[in-house]
């Protein structure tokens, strides 16, 4: 289960997931809270490429479809960029 899937399954507004998690649309852009960033892992190569294109890139930007949820991430806090509000 990815963070994107968890969000879209629960109809969280602002995460559209147009590409179904193929890391190919960047509509699942999130900012991972500093306390969680290590546990959320690092960006993949294709993720870096897609993030290149987003309007409000920050150091803690991730694509939610590339973040796999497990027990370690229980309670993780993420924020949405302005453009996805």
């Amino acid at each position, binding site marked *: 289960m990815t963070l994107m899937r968890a969000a879209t399954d629960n109809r969280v507004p602002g995460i*559209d*997931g*147009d*590409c*179904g998690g*193929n*890391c*190919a*649309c*960047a509509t699942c852009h999130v900012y991972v809270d500093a306390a969680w960033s290590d546990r959320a892992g690092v960006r993949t190569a*294709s993720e870096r*490429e*897609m993030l*290149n*294109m987003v*309007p409000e890139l920050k150091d803690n930007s991730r694509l939610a479809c590339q973040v796999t949820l497990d027990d370690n991430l229980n309670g993780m806090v993420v924020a949405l960029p*302005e*453009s*996805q*509000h």
Partner: protein
Amino acid sequence: MKPAITAVNTPESTTQIAAARARVAALDLSQLNPADPQGFVDDTVGYVFERLRHEDPVHRSHSPVPGIDSYWSITRYQDIMQVDTRPDIYSSESGITLMDFPPGDDQQLKMFIAMDPPKHDEQRRAVNPIVAPANLKNWHDLIRERTCRVLDTLPRNETFDWVDKVSIELTTYMLATLFDFPLDDRRLLTYWSDISTANKLTNPDAPEPEVRMAELRKMLSYFTRLWNERVNVAPRSDLVSMLAHGPATRNMGPLEYMGNLVLLIVGGNDTTRNSMTGGLLALDNNPQEMAKLRANPTLIESMVSEIIRWQTPLAYMRRTALADTELGGKQIGKDDKLAMWYLSGNRDESAIAEPDRFIIDRAKPRQHLSFGFGIHRCVGNRLAELQLKILWEEILRRFEVIEVMGEPIRVRSSFVRGFSKLPVRIRC
């Protein structure tokens, strides 16, 4: 038995569909050439794709047209996704349509849709904010006002051409709005859009390269005037002002400025226009969906995505292999051309449930291929959706019945999938 692609009140009866399918089924696989524009004029290319998806999803196709020659047809959703997300293997630098430009024609404009990283990324980042959702709010009211103005002047109880009076008129109006371009000159935008995509190989009537370049220089000088007017006053929300003031774009050279302008004009022109026509036709062909919409106008948003899937205004994008590679069990050679047939991927039952039906409230309506995927995914996708959403909101508010009065005339192109005429009547 599959459901018929078109519904009850279209001229295509079930027997004609069966006949078209049988015609395609009788051909040898090697003869299947979906880039033949005839299949778009008579809207039968869907049967070619249906067969390819099942029998030869990555298909070596041959076109008798010089300049197209041999190319690979990629027809399944997942294979298209695979190609679109690997710009390191499948390049855009050699162009995005199958037709190569005539040898010696170096007049092709350089636009980032036909570039690879890193150049693509730099240029795209510069124009990206222009259509970012936060900026769309600025245009919301203007788009609505102009949509209302166009709809309010339409004839009642008489037959007129929806393409000319609504789709072209609104698209050009909206482009003029985005550029804050003098409204009286707005059809110049359509003209420049047509000129910039003209290619002598496909269209013998296209202007000579010198003539074409001269016209584009006129466009550049027009837009340079607008730039100069705006660069010295406070930033505003139109595209020209944004380009003139944006840190990444304010030092662009003239050719780069022209490339970006043309890309935005062309990108927003045929595509949105044909979604406006295609949507009306789809609803007319599917009265039960029209009834659903009237009963529940909050379906407009998901309907807009479904219209864009259904229409697929750009039937494919081309890529060129940078190295020998393998795709779907086929050996792709370096320099081979590939067409990612979005139109076929959008009808792939392994990715989309009941793909041959137009369903305005389907699950996951946004997961279609019409905007492409990966680093070239359409910059203007939210803007296009906004325009269509406002159009349908205002149509529902005004008109009870819009009847399609005759056959649509389809554009002779395997790239732009669209209409040149659709006779309709507003009854009231």
